[in-house]
C-alpha cells in the first residue's frame, strides 16, 4: 500500500472514531454537534502528556479519554434539560467555547498551534479504531444497548419500566466524549501539529455526516460513512473543479434513496442470509 493510501486509511480511522462518538450519543436519542470539542481535549491533553511529560502514547490516550469522559458527563447533565434542535445548539455552543479556550491558552501554543508529537502509523490508528468498533458491535448485542435504545425510542416509557434514563443519557455523553478524545489524540500524533482551527464546527459536522451517511442504526454504518467521506473526494479528483459538487450530489442521492443511511439491520441481515427475529 502506498504512503498516500496509508494516509487516507489513517484519516478514515480517525474519522471513524469521531463518527462513533456521535453514534453512541445518538443511540440515546441525543444529537451532539460539539464532539470536535471533545476531540480537541483529547488532542491537546494527549499531546501535552507525550511532549511535555514524556508519557508513552497509549497511556496518554487513556488518560485523555478518561478526562474527556468526565467533561462529557459534566456537559451531559445540563444537556438533560434539552432535546432535539435545542440540544444540538447547546452542544454546538460548547464546541465553539472550547475552540475559543484553546485559541486563548498560550501554554499549548494558542492560535499558533502546538508541535513536537511523534508520528504514529496507520496500523496504530486502526488498532484503536478497529478495537473500539469491535467492542461497540459486541455492546450492541448487550442489555445495555437495549436500554439505550429504549431511551432513544421513548424516554418516558423507559423511565416507567424502571430504567435510569439520567444515567444512560449522561453515560452515553461520557463514553462518546472519551471516544472523540481518542480520535483527537490519534489526529494530533498522526499530523504532528494541532491548532484550534482543526476542531471547529466543520469537524463536528463531518462526524455527524459520516454517522448519518453510513447508517445511524448500526456501529458498522460509521465505518462505511467514514471510508466514503475520506475516499470519495479523492476518487473524484479526475473531474477537478467539479469534484466537490459531484461529491455533494452523490451524498444527496444516497440519502434520498436510503434515508436510514447505507447500512441498516435489514441490509445486514440480507448480506449475512439471516432471518429477521419473529
Amino acid at each position, binding site marked *: 500500500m502506498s504512503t*498516500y493510501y496509508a494516509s487516507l486509511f489513517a484519516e478514515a480511522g480517525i474519522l471513524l472514531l469521531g463518527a462513533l462518538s456521535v453514534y453512541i450519543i445518538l443511540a440515546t436519542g441525543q444529537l451532539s454537534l460539539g464532539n470536535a470539542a471533545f476531540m480537541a481535549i483529547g488532542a491537546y491533553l494527549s499531546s501535552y502528556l507525550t511532549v511535555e511529560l514524556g508519557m508513552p502514547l497509549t497511556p496518554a490516550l487513556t488518560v485523555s479519554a478518561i478526562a474527556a469522559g468526565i467533561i462529557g458527563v459534566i456537559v451531559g447533565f445540563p444537556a438533560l434539560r434539552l432535546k432535539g434542535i435545542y440540544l444540538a445548539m447547546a452542544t454546538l455552543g460548547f464546541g465553539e467555547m472550547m475552540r475559543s479556550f484553546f485559541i486563548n491558552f498560550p501554554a499549548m501554543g494558542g492560535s499558533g498551534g502546538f*508541535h513536537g508529537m511523534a508520528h504514529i502509523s496507520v496500523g496504530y490508528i486502526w488498532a484503536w479504531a478497529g478495537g473500539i468498533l469491535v467492542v461497540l458491535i459486541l455492546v450492541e448485542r448487550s442489555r445495555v444497548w437495549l436500554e439505550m435504545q429504549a431511551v432513544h425510542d421513548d424516554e418516558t416509557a423507559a423511565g416507567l419500566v424502571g430504567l435510569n434514563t439520567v444515567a444512560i443519557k449522561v453515560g452515553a455523553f461520557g463514553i462518546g466524549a472519551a471516544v472523540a478524545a481518542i480520535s483527537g489524540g490519534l489526529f494530533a500524533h498522526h499530523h504532528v501539529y494541532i491548532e484550534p482551527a482543526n476542531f471547529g464546527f466543520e469537524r463536528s459536522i463531518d462526524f455527524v455526516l459520516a454517522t448519518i451517511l453510513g447508517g445511524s442504526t448500526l456501529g458498522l454504518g460509521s465505518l462505511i460513512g467514514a471510508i466514503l467521506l475520506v475516499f470519495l473526494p479523492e476518487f473524484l479528483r479526475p473531474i477537478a473543479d467539479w469534484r466537490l459538487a459531484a461529491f455533494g450530489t452523490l451524498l444527496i442521492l444516497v440519502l434520498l434513496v436510503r434515508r436510514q443511511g447505507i447500512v441498516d439491520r435489514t441490509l445486514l441481515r440480507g448480506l449475512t442470509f439471516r432471518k429477521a427475529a419473529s
Partner: protein
Amino acid sequence: MVNSNGKKSMLKVILNPSRLLGTLAVISLSAGSALAQAPEIALGAVVPSSGPFAEWGRSNSVTLKMLEKQTNDAGGINGAKLKITILDDGAKPAQAASSLRKLAGDEKVLAVAGPLTSSAAEVTFPVANEMKVVATSQASSKPGVAKLNRPWAFRNTIDEGMLAKTTVPYFKKAFNIKSVGIIFDAKDATAATVGKAIMPAALKANEIAIVNESDPLSFNTGDLDVSAQVTKLKSLNPDGVVVSADYSQAITVLREMKRQGLIKPVVGATQLISSAILKAAPEIPIIAPATFFATMKGEAAEKFVTNLQPLLRKESGLPAEIEPSMYDANIYEIVSMYIDAIKKSGVTGKPADVEADRAKIRDHLAKLEGFQGLGGPIGFNDDGDAIKAFYVLQGQNGAWDTKVRGCSSAPNHAGC
C-alpha cells in the same frame, strides 16, 4: 518531392477507407509512441482550488499551466517535457499532507510547490521530510514554519516578523501614529499570530501605544458582522488601526470602519495585499508589505503580468477584474527555481534516479543565491525562508504605491 507513383499510391490510400484508417492508426500509434518515449520532468503543486482561499488557488493553477506551456514551447527542460501535476487541498491541512504523499509517492514528482497556508505547511512539511522531497510554500509567512522542518522545507516568502520591523516605522512616520487599536481574525493561525504577537512587539519597539492591549478585539473567519468590534475600536479613538486578517476578511472590517466613520489609517501583514481590498473603502489608507504587486515596475514583473492577466480573466472562473497576486508571483518563482535547479544540477528525471534528483534540487536551493525572480534576486536563508526584496506599500484611492524597499537579508548570505 512526391513522384507520380507516390501520388497514385497516396490516392489509393485516400480512396480506400480501410487503408486510410489503417494508415491513420499507424501514424497515431507512432506519434503516441514518440510522445510516450519523450523524457518527462514531473513536478507537483498543492493549491487550494476550493475552500476559503480558492481565489488564490485557482489563480495559482492558471499561473502554473502558463509556466508549463511557456517551458515546453521553449523546448522543455534539457530536452525533456515539463509536466506539473496540480492537486487541490481545499486549504485543509490533512488534504494538503495527503496530496503531497500522492505527488511524491505515487506520481514520483521531483519537487512540490505549495502548500499555500501556514496551517497546511505545518502538517505538510514534516511529510516532505519523511518522503525526502522538496516542498516550497508560496504564501506561508508564520514565523519558524520552515525552520522546524529542515532540510526539505522551503518558503518563497518572508517571515512576517521581519516585514513588520520595516512596515511599522513607516506607518508611524507617514501618519504620525502614537496609538493604535488591534483587531484580528482569531481563527486564522497566521492572522492571530500577527495580531497577538508580531504586531504588538513591533509597535512597542516603535513606542506606539496599543489602546486595547488588555482587551484584544477579534472575529472569526467567515463572520459577516463585525460592527460590535468596530464600535469598540471607535470608542477608543486610536490614531491608526492594525487589521490582521486575510484580505477577504479584512474587507469586512474596512467596510464597517467606513460605515461607522472610523476613517483611520490601517496597517497589516502581507495577507492584506490584493486589488479587491482597495475597493472596499478607498478613502482609508492601507499600509502593508509585499514582495510583488500587480502594478509593480520592472521588465520581469511587467512581462509576467502582461502574460498572466488575460489567462486569469479567461480561465480562472474568477471575477473579470482579477489581477495576478503576490502568491501567483511566488509560485511562478518557485517552479522557475526548480527548473533552474534541474537544468544546472544534473537532474536526469529518470525513475531510477528520483531520490538522487530530489536531493540535487534540495542542495541547489539551499545554496541558491541571486536567482532572478520577478522583483529581484532570490536566495534562501538557513531557516529555508526566502531572501528577497520586499516593498512597503500604501494603498489608497484604488492603487498601491511603493513607499519603502527592503531586503530580508541574512548573515553569511548574499543580499537583494
